[in-house]
C-alpha cells in the first residue's frame, strides 16, 4: 500500500454528503460529492466542507467546545456519528453522510 501511495500520491475515496435544512441553503446545493484521501475521518470531511464553503461553519462546528455536536446530527451510512467514533470515524469509499441541523424553523 505504501508503495502504491508513493506512486499514486494518495488513494482517493469518494463520499457523498447530503445537506439538509439551513445547511442546504448555505451550501446552495443539497448534495456534494467529495474525494478525500483514504483513511480520512469524518472530522477531515467537516474541515474540507468548511474550507470549501465557509458559510457552513456556524452550523457545522462550535469552536468553543471544538465539536460539531451542539448544532447538527451527522449520520454516517445510517448511523449517528457519536455512536461510532465521533469526528474520528473513518470513512470508506462510497460512504454517505447526512448532515442534519438540529435547530430548524417551525
Amino acid at each position, binding site marked *: 500500500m505504501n508503495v502504491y501511495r508513493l506512486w499514486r500520491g494518495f488513494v482517493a475515496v469518494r463520499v457523498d454528503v447530503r445537506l*439538509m*435544512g*439551513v445547511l*442546504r*441553503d448555505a451550501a446552495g446545493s443539497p448534495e456534494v460529492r467529495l474525494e478525500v484521501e483514504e483513511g480520512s475521518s469524518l472530522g477531515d470531511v467537516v474541515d474540507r466542507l468548511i474550507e470549501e464553503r465557509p458559510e457552513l461553519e456556524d452550523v457545522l462546528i*462550535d469552536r*468553543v*467546545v471544538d*465539536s460539531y*455536536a*451542539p*448544532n447538527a*446530527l451527522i*449520520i*454516517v*451510512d*445510517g*448511523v*449517528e456519528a*457519536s*455512536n*461510532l*467514533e465521533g469526528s474520528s*470515524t*473513518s*470513512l*470508506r469509499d462510497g*460512504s454517505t453522510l*447526512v448532515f*442534519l*441541523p*438540529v*435547530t*430548524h*424553523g*417551525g
Partner: protein
Amino acid sequence: MRWAVMTLNTLIRSCTKCRIAPSVYHRPYSGERLCAACFNESLFERVKKTVGKYDMFEYDSRIAVGVSGGKDSLAMLRLLQRLERDRPYAELVAVCVDEGVKGYRDEALSIAEKNCRELGVEMHTVGFRELFGETMDEIAARERELGACSYCGVLRRRALDEAARAVDADRLATGHNLDDMAQSVLLNVLRGDVVRMDAFHPGGQSLEGFVRRVKPLCEVPERETTLYAYINGLEFQSLPCPYAEEAMRSDVRRFLNRMEVKRPGTKFIVYQTGLKIRGRGNGGVLRRCRVCGSPARGDLCRACELSGRTE
C-alpha cells in the same frame, strides 16, 4: 461489550435494549446505544410516561395538536396518534396557524396538510389576518418597538387558543421539547421573571373558559425529535423563519448546547430545577383582559396590547 456488525471501518455496538440489532444512536446522557426500533419505542414510552405523570389528558379528551409543519410538532402528532389508539373515546385534531409569512409559512402549511392527510387527522387552520387584521409580513414591515419574534410568539399563542376553542378541544398540545423548556427556565431566571417561572409547568393549568395547554415532548431533547423525524422519514419544514432574531434565546440555546456537550444531562437538570422552584414566588395575581377576557397580568393581555386592540 456486545458487537453487532462491522461496517465502515468501525465495529458498531449492538443495541443496549434488544441486544440484537446494531445500534444507530448513542444517548450521551444515559449511555444507551439504541437501534432504530428501540429508539422509536423509547421515545414513545417517554412521552407516554410524561403524559401520565402530568395527567395531561382525560380518557375522552378532544386534543387540539398545534402543528407547524416542523419536526417537533409532526413527531408529536405521530406519537400522540399512537398513544391515543388505546383510548377509543379520545380524538386528535391538528390546529395550524398561518402567520402570513410568504414562502416560509406556505411551505410549512402544505407539509402539515400532507402529514395530516397521511395520518387521517382532521386539520383546522386560523390566520393572523382574520384574527388580528394583519399578517406577520405586514407587522414586520411596519415601525415597531419590539422584535418580530415578540409579536409572533404572543399572537401565535393566542391564535392556537382560538383554533383549539373553534374545534371544541379540551386540551391544546404544543411541540415544546426539552431544549425549549430548559431555555425557558434560564430565560426566566436571566430576566428575573418570577411570574412566568411560577407558571412553568408542562401539564398546564385549567382556567375556566380556556383550553388547557400541555407539552407532551417536554422531556425529549431536540436532537431526538430531529432524529425521530429523520429515522421515520417524516417530511418536515427545515427552513428557518426569515424573521428569527431572538438574540437572548439564541445565546441561552448556545450556552445550554455547549454545556450539554461538556456535561451530558445538563438540560434535564435545568428543566427539573425549573419545576422544583416554580410556585415559590407569589406568582402575581392573574386577571382577565378587559377586551377579550383572556388571562392577563394587567388590564390588557399581551395579544391585545401588541395588536393594538383597546376596545
